């Protein structure tokens, strides 16, 4: 131990030389951040490949490509991979890279645990994805894993252990983030001067610690029901299948906010930069995030309006869900007000952020409609819901991650990406994603249930349009890959330390690329240099 500790102190001037030493044994927040980001991009393409199978089968009526059971494996795996493999780890990667840089800390508070939280992930996903190659196939009961159906699957144990591993990784990541933010800030970096991104992650980390154990409990009960003769969810043995849904969504709803709060943070950094104007209502923004996080614990049964809840429960969960629209609205209004009176330019990160505000809001509108329980008796489990959560997750969470990648790539790599190709990627994505998901609103309203491999001829046109948008959106992401690879390895254009004219915050005071070790000595904080240093409100 003592030896290792001194060893860490030695190489303060550069990265370890050996590949294994540098990447597998890493305790450096920047390298681990990079690992997370590469991992999540890989998962994004694997999950995307599953989506292509889904959209190909749904291209026209009739079964052309896959068996219905395999189709169900695809929808299940697509969701699990995208949620746990793509969106969540990429936010953790961004947190690793940026939080120490933003609060003036030399590294994460718990660097070795950081290494462990990352390296669990590849194993979790090998476990999960390997089920596709086994006799009996992968999980096919939906990412929500409702029993009794999920217990009919032969690979449920693999899925459960994979979920356990992901949960452990997330919890450790969250502990690390909280410890870093609360203990490692440079003197003068008061809590209420922190970037909104850091705030959003602080709150998200608490959500993670609160709900990942709940998910672990729920899936463990599935495991014992399947293999150890318990009857938690088995009606014939005195259990209750609906109990699982309550536990799952007690995790599940905060989980969807785990996937959007860091996005709120990112957007709240980027819009001020390219508007050259401080964020409007800093404190209201932080307070809105905190109240959304609180409310997210008391709305879970809006996913269960059709299970036959007592009327009082329906009313309670309906009102609580509708309340979320208020702080969410505050955020949207504040972003617009930040832009108002600014001096705007439209580089790729800004384009993605503006698209985020508009398209996430559309997802919020459908969310508000879904919150109305009587109307949800129609919407529930249709393509209308599919459209809703893809607007908030793809054009919300995923767009914010892309915005963040373009925004901070110069800091990470020391090079500027190609603005032309970035814009091509943006326009191609933003058009195709709407071709992909907007018609799904119509399909749901017209009566098409979700998670079906084939459909009546009446749904044919919009499905075909949606599939074309899907292939186009999928292909557009290859441009993203190209832009990133070009930027990191081939771009000749060096990035300035302050890569964007209007950018403020500590991360822009260090060189580009950020050296292996930063802030060995805590920086002296000048409020004017901070993005939110002078915000009295």
């Amino acid at each position, binding site marked *: 131990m003592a030896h290792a500790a001194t060893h860490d102190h030695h190489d303060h001037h550069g990265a370890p030389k050996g590949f294994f030493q540098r990447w597998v044994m890493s305790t450096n927040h920047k390298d681990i951040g990079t690992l997370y980001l590469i991992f999540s991009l890989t998962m994004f393409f694997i999950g995307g490949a599953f989506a292509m199978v889904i959209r190909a089968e749904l291209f026209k009526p009739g079964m052309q490509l896959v068996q219905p059971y395999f189709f169900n494996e695809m929808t299940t795996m697509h969701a699990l991979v995208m949620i746990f493999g793509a969106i969540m780890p990429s936010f953790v990667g961004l947190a690793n890279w940026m939080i120490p840089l933003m609060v003036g800390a030399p590294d994460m508070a718990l660097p070795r645990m950081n290494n462990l939280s990352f390296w669990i992930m590849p194993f979790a996903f090998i476990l999960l994805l390997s089920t596709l190659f086994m006799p009996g196939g992968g999980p096919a009961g939906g990412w929500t894993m409702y029993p*009794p159906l999920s217990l009919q699957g032969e690979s449920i144990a693999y899925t459960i252990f994979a979920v356990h591993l992901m949960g452990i990784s997330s919890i450790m990541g969250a502990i690390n983030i909280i410890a870093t933010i609360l203990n490692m800030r440079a003197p003068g970096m008061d809590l209420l001067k922190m970037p909104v991104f850091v705030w959003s992650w602080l709150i998200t980390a608490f959500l993670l610690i609160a709900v990942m154990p709940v998910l672990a409990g729920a899936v463990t009960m599935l495991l014992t029901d399947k293999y150890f003769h318990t009857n938690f969810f088995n009606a014939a043995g005195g259990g209750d299948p609906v109990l699982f849904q309550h536990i799952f969504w007690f995790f599940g709803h905060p989980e969807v906010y785990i996937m959007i709060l860091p996005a709120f943070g990112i957007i709240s950094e980027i819009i001020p930069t390219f508007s050259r104007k401080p964020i409007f209502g800093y404190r209201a923004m932080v307070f809105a995030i905190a109240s959304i996080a609180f409310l997210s614990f008391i709305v879970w049964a809006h996913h269960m309006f*059709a299970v036959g809840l007592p009327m009082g429960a329906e009313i309670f969960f309906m009102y609580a869900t509708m309340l979320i629209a208020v702080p969410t609205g505050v955020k949207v209004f504040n972003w617009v007000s930040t832009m108002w009176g600014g*001096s705007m330019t439209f580089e790729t990160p800004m384009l993605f952020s503006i698209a985020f505000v508009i398209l996430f809001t559309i997802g919020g509108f459908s969310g508000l409609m879904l919150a109305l329980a009587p109307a949800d008796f129609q919407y*529930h*489990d249709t393509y209308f819901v599919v459209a809703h959560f893809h607007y908030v997750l793809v054009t919300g969470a995923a767009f914010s991650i892309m915005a963040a990648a373009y925004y901070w790539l110069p800091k990470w790599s020391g090079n500027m990406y190609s603005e032309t190709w970035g814009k091509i990627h943006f326009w191609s994505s933003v058009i195709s994603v709407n071709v992909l998901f907007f018609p799904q609103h119509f399909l749901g309203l017209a009566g098409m249930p979700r998670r*079906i491999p084939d459909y009546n001829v009446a749904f044919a046109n919009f499905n075909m349009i949606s599939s074309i948008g899907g292939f186009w959106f999928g292909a557009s992401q290859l441009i993203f890959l190209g832009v990133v690879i070009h930027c990191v390895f081939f771009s000749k254009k060096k990035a300035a330390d302050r890569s964007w004219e209007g950018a403020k915050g500590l991360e822009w005071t260090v060189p580009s690329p950020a050296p292996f070790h930063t802030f060995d000595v805590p920086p002296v904080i000048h409020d004017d240099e901070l993005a939110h240093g002078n*915000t009295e409100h």
Partner: protein
Amino acid sequence: MTSGGIGRSISAWAAGALALFGGAAWANPEPNQLNMTKGAAEWSPYAMHMVALWVCVVIGIVVFGAMFIAMFRFRKSRGAVAEKWSHSTKLEVVWTVIPVIILIFLAHLATGGLTSFADTTNSEMTIKVTGYQWKWRYDYVDYKGKGVDQVGFISKLEETSDRTRQLKSNLDPDKIKVDGYNTYLLDVDKPLVLPTNTKIRFVIVGGDVIHSWWVPALGWKMDAIPGIANAAWTNIKEPGVYRGQCAELCGQDHGFMPIVVKAVPRAEFEQWLATQEDEAKVQKAAQTAQTVPAQAPQG
């Protein structure tokens, strides 16, 4: 229709949009349908849906409008200079209070909808619906306060659809039509026959895994869960054939367990029910007759 679907969809769009704003009532999915059906039953969330939709459209126009104005006016390339302000209590109060008022209005509407939906009392008829992998069972429990004698049957995907939906069947889903309406995956061997203008209570249960019984024209879906008896009701106003599907993932053939409700005037329904009861009696008699000779040689 699958080939060249796009071209036709654009021309059909105009008709669809017209119907959307003209408010045509679809009972069953129509090609290029954009909006929710008004339904054929007394209880319908359609009005509530439309109110919520228009509220969202109006808010959207205001917010996105402001954004586009900002993007146009405050561009650096137009020489805009950034202002310094970053706060306004007055504005923040305004855009907290106005949404709250709108939400209270919507909550009021929705609470009314929920209350009427939850009231299953005073029904004249009870149907028990059981979901199985991958078919439905319907049992007629009582009608006008009298128990119904052994009328119940399984209802599952009709055969032509079933053959067509097999992987690489090379059969054309377009060809499956009833009265000119395409019924691919939306038709069953034996529909649920119900009387119109009758408050009907449903008791919905799951036989193996969770399913969800959904006919859009009735305005709601209700999960069919093993071990739990869920209740719902409808009162169908217009005779017709109403089609729906299972709405909760229930395994490989989840997409292939449609629901068909055939609503007929009461007199016709009573006749139908009587025939069914008679048939059930005949069948029962035949069964006993069959079992007796079967046992005879032993005796």
